[in-house]
């Protein structure tokens, strides 16, 4: 009973927090965080209650379903446009529950962290207002049971992302990054919007569950819009929000925003929305295997592309951003091969450890006085030990070293890709795992180990962040360590699989994936061994180039080796490509600013000169005809008279003609 009644609070609370803070936050000054943090805390409690009930099966069965537990609340009417009827309803099923865990928990921790991180910012209240707005939007996104409402939330998270990236609006780069994020997202959104229309056209409803049931109903084969196309359009939306190639360009730039924002939005929650969307629409994709291949291909390509770029970036947040891209690529690859559960699993684990890493990087940046360039860091482990420790946990987790969280989820992706026959996905993924381990420990080496390369006076003033920042780090480190064990075990019948099986079993059946018993000492064990091996290789390689100071294990950083390797003939091109992010920004600049701008200018010229010119030309030529005719009026009577006489003659001639023709 009660939980249903509480669920709307998940939306109402953050919205209320946003409105209140927006209206009176300025007056609250440095106390402005109480309301936003409070409402998110309350929302977290509600969410946890709901999640517990849903995942433990305490919640009732969903209407029309035999095995899925969850809640449906509402609906409330939104657009009653005759045949086009949109209602807002809340749906909490296991999938939503998984997302709720990530969103509310990390959201809460980021809120708390921000109290410290943003404490000196004049826009303190504004920041929290935006955060609450984001939380509202994100929760709406995962809770909504209607495609159009999802789309609404989709756009709203885009808006909050825009506001938060551009939070430091005086920075031109921040403003530009915000704009870029919104517009690139819009590109994907438009695909999604068309997809929604296609869904409506095909099914006549926009309710998520109803429409999917109709879409995958094998008795209805002749849809106006082919199902693969619909799936592709929905995927377009996912690509935008989750920054998949080629719409990935906005995410690294989004690091212009304050670091808590990067952690919350651009690592842990919003960028996962695409994954969530595809997972939510899993039967739709399952009904369109061709689209699935596209999803997998784009995912794995993004993974390797982003990983390759992350190898050489020097901005600590950008490394993490590209890492996020890469990990999102993994998730899409998982979705594409049909490993929906693995994707969600990785989403959750990644949410925690990437959130941790970002918050940690924020702590680092804070410590070194807003410096983000790792070339001016080094040896920070001694100065900021808590940050160091938690980030190390995160790095190990993302590198896929057992038994931390990342190992379980990543391994599951790679394993399932292999088992489902997507060897190429597996192979590339494995290589990406190596790169991941490498660039993460490159980051660790450059930041925490070795000697400080920045100015001396800064070194002296470096200190650990306040508890309000470090406690969230610690709290995030815990799931980074344990989540894999908690959800990923036992192998073959893990908790997460049991949770999500009701959501995905339909799709799995449709895809007719091979389902073999788990063989720890067979193929699966081999796969684990392979991924662990590459991870270790990556870590070791990173140690060799960038040093390590781990207990007794101490290696110096060897910049000369880096230079030498990067100058090696076969590698120098790759190095430059990586450094320049494969020139995507340049390409986009060329396409949209140079060529697009020229085109727009040309069209404007066309508008002025050809269209308006024609209009004005009609006007001015009319007037010049008038000027010409005016000359007939010479002022001389005889000329006039001659004109009259000629007129008389012409008229006589025409009358004679008319008369001859008998009228």
């Amino acid at each position, binding site marked *: 009973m009660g939980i249903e009644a509480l669920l709307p609070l998940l939306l109402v609370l953050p919205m209320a927090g946003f409105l209140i803070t927006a209206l009176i936050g300025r007056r609250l000054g440095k106390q402005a965080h109480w309301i936003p943090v409070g409402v998110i805390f309350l929302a977290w409690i509600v969410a946890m209650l709901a999640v517990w009930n849903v995942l433990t099966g305490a919640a009732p069965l969903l209407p029309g379903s035999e095995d899925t537990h969850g809640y449906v609340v509402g609906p409330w009417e939104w657009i009653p446009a005759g045949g086009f009827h949109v209602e807002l309803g809340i749906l909490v099923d296991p999938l939503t529950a998984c997302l709720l865990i990530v969103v509310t928990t990390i959201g809460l921790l980021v809120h708390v962290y921000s109290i410290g991180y943003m404490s000196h910012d004049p826009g303190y209240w504004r920041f929290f207002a935006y955060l609450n707005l984001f939380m509202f939007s994100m929760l709406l996104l995962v809770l909504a049971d209607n495609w159009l409402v999802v789309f609404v939330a989709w756009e709203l998270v885009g808006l909050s992302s825009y506001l938060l990236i551009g939070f430091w609006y005086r920075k031109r780069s921040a403003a530009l990054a915000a704009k870029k994020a919104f517009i690139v997202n819009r590109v994907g959104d438009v695909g999604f919007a068309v997809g929604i229309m296609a869904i409506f056209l095909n099914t006549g409803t926009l309710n998520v569950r109803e429409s999917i049931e109709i879409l995958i109903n094998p008795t209805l084969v002749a849809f106006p819009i082919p199902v693969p196309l619909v799936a592709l359009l929905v995927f377009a939306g996912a690509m935008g929000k989750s920054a998949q190639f080629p719409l990935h360009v906005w995410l690294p730039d989004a690091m212009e925003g304050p670091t808590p924002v990067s952690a919350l939005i651009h690592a842990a929650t919003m960028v996962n929305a695409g994954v969530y969307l595809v997972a939510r629409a899993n039967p739709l994709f399952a009904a369109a295997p061709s689209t699935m291949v596209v999803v997998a291909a784009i995912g794995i390509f993004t993974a390797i592309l982003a990983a390759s770029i992350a190898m050489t970036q020097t901005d600590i947040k950008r490394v993490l951003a590209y890492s996020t891209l890469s990990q999102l690529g993994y998730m899409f690859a998982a979705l594409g091969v049909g490993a929906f559960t693995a994707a969600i699993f990785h989403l959750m684990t990644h949410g925690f450890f990437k959130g941790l890493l970002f918050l940690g990087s924020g702590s680092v940046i804070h410590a070194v006085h807003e410096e983000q360039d790792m070339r001016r860091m080094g040896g920070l482990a001694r100065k900021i030990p808590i940050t160091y420790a938690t980030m190390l946990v995160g790095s190990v987790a993302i590198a896929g070293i057992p038994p931390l969280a990342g190992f379980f989820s990543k391994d599951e992706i790679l394993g399932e890709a292999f088992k489902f026959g997507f060897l190429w996905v597996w192979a590339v993924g494995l290589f990406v795992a190596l790169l991941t381990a490498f660039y993460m420990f490159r980051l660790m080496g450059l930041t925490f180990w070795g000697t400080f390369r920045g100015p001396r006076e800064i070194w002296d003033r470096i200190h650990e962040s306040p508890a309000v920042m470090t406690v969230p780090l610690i709290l995030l480190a815990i799931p980074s360590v344990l989540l894999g064990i908690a959800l990923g075990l036992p192998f073959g019948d893990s908790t997460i699989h049991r949770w999500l099986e009701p959501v995905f079993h339909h799709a799995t059946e449709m895809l007719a994936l091979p389902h073999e018993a788990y063989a720890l000492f067979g193929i699966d064990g081999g796969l684990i061994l392979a991924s662990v091996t590459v991870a270790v290789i990556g870590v070791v390689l990173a140690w060799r180039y960038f040093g390590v100071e781990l207990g007794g294990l101490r290696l110096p950083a060897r910049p000369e080796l880096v230079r030498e390797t990067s100058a090696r003939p076969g590698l120098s091109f790759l190095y430059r490509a990586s450094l320049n992010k494969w020139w995507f920004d340049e390409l986009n600049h060329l396409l949209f600013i140079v060529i697009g701008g020229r085109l727009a200018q040309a069209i404007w010229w066309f508008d002025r000169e050809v269209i308006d010119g024609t209009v004005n030309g009609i006007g001015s030529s009319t007037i010049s005809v008038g000027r010409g005719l005016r000359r007939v009026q010479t002022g*001389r009577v*005889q*000329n006039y008279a*001659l004109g009259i*006489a*000629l007129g*008389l*003659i012409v008229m*006589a001639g025409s009358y*004679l003609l008319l008369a001859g023709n008998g009228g």
Partner: protein
Amino acid sequence: MRAKLPQIIFALLIMGAVLGIAALLVVVLRQDWEDALLWILGVVLLGAGLLVVTMRDIIRCGLAMIVCFLALAGIYVLMGVPLLGAAQVIVYIGAISVLVLFAIMLTQTKDAPSRLVFQTQAGPAAIAAVVVAILIALAVGATDWHEVARRARLNTSEMARVLFEQFVFPFEIVSVLLLAAVIGGVFLAKREPGGPS
């Protein structure tokens, strides 16, 4: 005078030709003497008309116009409407021509006759006039006017009856018209005390 000799000879030649043709009409073609007279008067009418529009000296033009009007009066008499001929003489020669000559006197400046008699468009004007003439002539020739045999002369009482019974209203209107013209004409021609001389 010597210089004008060729012109005089030319004029005499034309007169001779006209009279000669008239005589020919009567004698050889056995036409009515009326025809001969009509021929002569017609030639005079048109010739004088041509002189009116072509002569350099405007006073001579005015005189030629009087000749022209006289010829027309003669034709009216020939046509059997002598009263109209009389009116023609009285109105056109007695009133209008005098008025015109008077105006000519008033407006002649010292350097007149002016440098050019004709407009630059005299050529096109001539062509237009010829075309008009041809058009009228062709139309006249090509049309059946349903005419009857030509009537005898119109006697004065008949004309008076028509004028004062059938056309009494137009007659009154003409008087109003003349009154209006006179009032306005007097106003316009009157010299203003302060106006230009």
